[in-house]
């Protein structure tokens, strides 16, 4: 049995889900409880823009990785390759 680097991609997706959920909670609070001011609107839009750019950059990086490289090969006495 071989565990490939794809496991790190799945771990990243878990953190991405956590990030998306908490971002949603925060933006909900700012929209529902915050005052309608330029600062509040700017922060929400800036956060969405930065998040979008960061996630786009991350996935563009991920496209260059070979996720099928073996990470742990259980066939070879638990050696990490």
């Amino acid at each position, binding site marked *: 049995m071989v565990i490939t680097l794809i496991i790190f991609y799945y771990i990243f997706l878990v*953190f991405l889900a956590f990030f998306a959920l908490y971002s949603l909670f925060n933006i909900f609070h700012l929209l529902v409880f915050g005052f309608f001011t330029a600062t509040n609107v700017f922060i929400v839009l800036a956060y969405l823009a930065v998040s979008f750019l960061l996630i786009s950059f991350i996935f563009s990086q991920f496209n260059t990785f070979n996720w099928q490289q073996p990470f742990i090969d259980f066939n070879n006495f638990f050696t990490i390759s």
Partner: protein
Amino acid sequence: MIRKNYIPNQEGDEKIMLHLRKHWFIFFRLYFFFAILAAIPAVIIFVLALNNPVLFSSDKMQVILKVGIDIYYLMILVFALTIWTINYLDVWTITSRKIISRDQLGLFNRVVSELELNRIQDITAEQKGILETTLNYGDVQIQSAGEIERFTFTDIPNPNEVARMIEKIRQDCQHEQPENTNQPV
């Protein structure tokens, strides 16, 4: 979003006198800390690359490091927004009749309280330390005769001026009230 001139349970000619938020330095101090956190991976990688360059020659190690750093920055970003939300949503509104305290204690913990100005017993302004004195921010504590005995405005700008203003508005409110009551015949 709430309109800035919105007053919950508005009475007659009640109007907003002042909105208060935390002093800008509080936000600066928090985000300076986040800036340091954001710089940490770059410093660590630089030091490791200098002392152990073989570590970064492996494709697998590069993938693992990049995924780790990406996760780290996503977490910093979302926690930075959480800290902003918790501090930015702390708002104190002084109207011509009452004080409204909106306190975001945590992401899922919000307390909104109202205090009629005529129930105020004591107002205290506090500035402790070099930074608070130099940058002119501090706390205003209001002792009341209501269910919540003490309101505290934390880390607001010009606390002494705010305390004076609240006292003046309270006195104006008390002077108006005898004119509005019907005297028995």
